[in-house]
């Protein structure tokens, strides 16, 4: 059975067997990482559809996020040596991510403006994943500060939002679609008249 009913009273268990309330910062972080993984799953679907070459990287990232989940769910300050060793998150994954970013970035036109989340289906889903990644990072900070998760996890999440940004731009380029750039909206009647005529 998929449902165990053990969580009906608002608690969940960690890998070390301890039970904590579901509102604990650990579950907040785990939940955000899970959301992030799901949003990358959607992005993967759209990247796969157009064959832009990002899918293998996205799958590896999804596997890494699973490992990050294990790291967060195994409090560093309250688990056995074996449990810690089995759930350590290696710094090498960050180097790999940086390599991917550099490769993608070298094929992109330089950034001259703020860009808006735009540029086709694959690109917008990658932007969405990027913004969720930042939330995952924010929710993981207090967990790392409490020595419950490894610092490498935080570093990876920080670099991952940069990767997803580069990947979103790359996807737009592969789809041969324009990225919209930020323009300062005029204030006052002029702007409002202009947009109204656009909307007809």
């Amino acid at each position, binding site marked *: 059975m998929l449902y165990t009913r053990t969580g009906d009273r608002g608690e969940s268990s960690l890998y070390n067997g301890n039970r904590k309330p579901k509102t604990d910062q650990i579950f907040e972080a785990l939940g955000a990482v899970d959301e992030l993984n799901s949003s990358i799953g959607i992005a993967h679907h759209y990247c796969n559809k157009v064959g832009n070459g990002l899918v293998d990287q996205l799958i590896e990232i999804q596997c890494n996020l699973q490992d990050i989940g294990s790291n967060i769910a195994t409090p560093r300050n309250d688990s056995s040596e074996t449990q810690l060793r089995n759930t350590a998150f290696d710094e090498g994954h960050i180097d790999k991510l940086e390599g991917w*970013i550099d490769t993608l970035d070298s094929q992109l036109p330089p950034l001259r403006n703020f860009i808006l989340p735009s540029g086709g*289906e694959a690109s917008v889903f990658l932007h*969405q994943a990027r913004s969720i990644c930042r939330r995952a990072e924010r929710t993981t900070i207090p967990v790392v500060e409490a020595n419950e998760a490894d610092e490498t996890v935080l570093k990876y999440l920080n670099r991952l939002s940069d990767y997803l940004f580069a990947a979103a731009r790359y996807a737009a380029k592969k789809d041969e679609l324009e990225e919209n750039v930020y323009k300062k909206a005029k*204030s006052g009647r002029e702007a409002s008249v202009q947009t109204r005529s*656009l909307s*007809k």
Partner: protein
Amino acid sequence: MAGRPKIYTKTGDKGTSALFTGERRPKDDVVFDALGTNDELSSFIGLAREFCLEQGAGVQGMVNQLEQIQCLLQDIGANIATPRDLATAPRLARTEFDSDGQHVQDLESWIDTMDQELPPLTAFILPSGGKAAAALHVARSVSRRTERRVVPLAQEQRVDKSVAIYLNRLSDYLFTCGRYAAMKADRAEVVYKKPRPPRVKRGAKTDDIE
């Protein structure tokens, strides 16, 4: 590659980020939570806009409006990242948001225009009505979360009140857009119906239900 600045600065690896004032704060500070949520909102609007483009007929106006809103959310980000209680006068002036209320008025007139074409609301509607409409409903719900993150900051006068007002109106706008997109796609909106629990005891096999 030489001389090209890297996207990743690594300065954030220790869990802090800088505000427009130069001050560094932990990334889980309420300001970054508000900024990050605002960024999520712009990304969800980007997605909804993409589906509106795909849907095409009848929602081109919305596509332009959504792009303008994404630019305004960038301005809102600048306002949030420049604490009103701490920043210098020139910085405050540069990052002022909607001081004359015109952007909120734009939203209101866009809502009114769409609303005239829509059938009246007689039941709770569920997020539904096709891809564009469903994505607009998601954006609406993220807009509400953004508003919840901004309201406490506005109350403490760390963010301009106009930002909270804009976000409040924006969720109404996105709700109306969701309904409008469904109508233009000729899709029925699913309405709320009270689900009836099956009359079977707990622990019975699923085959026994219905």
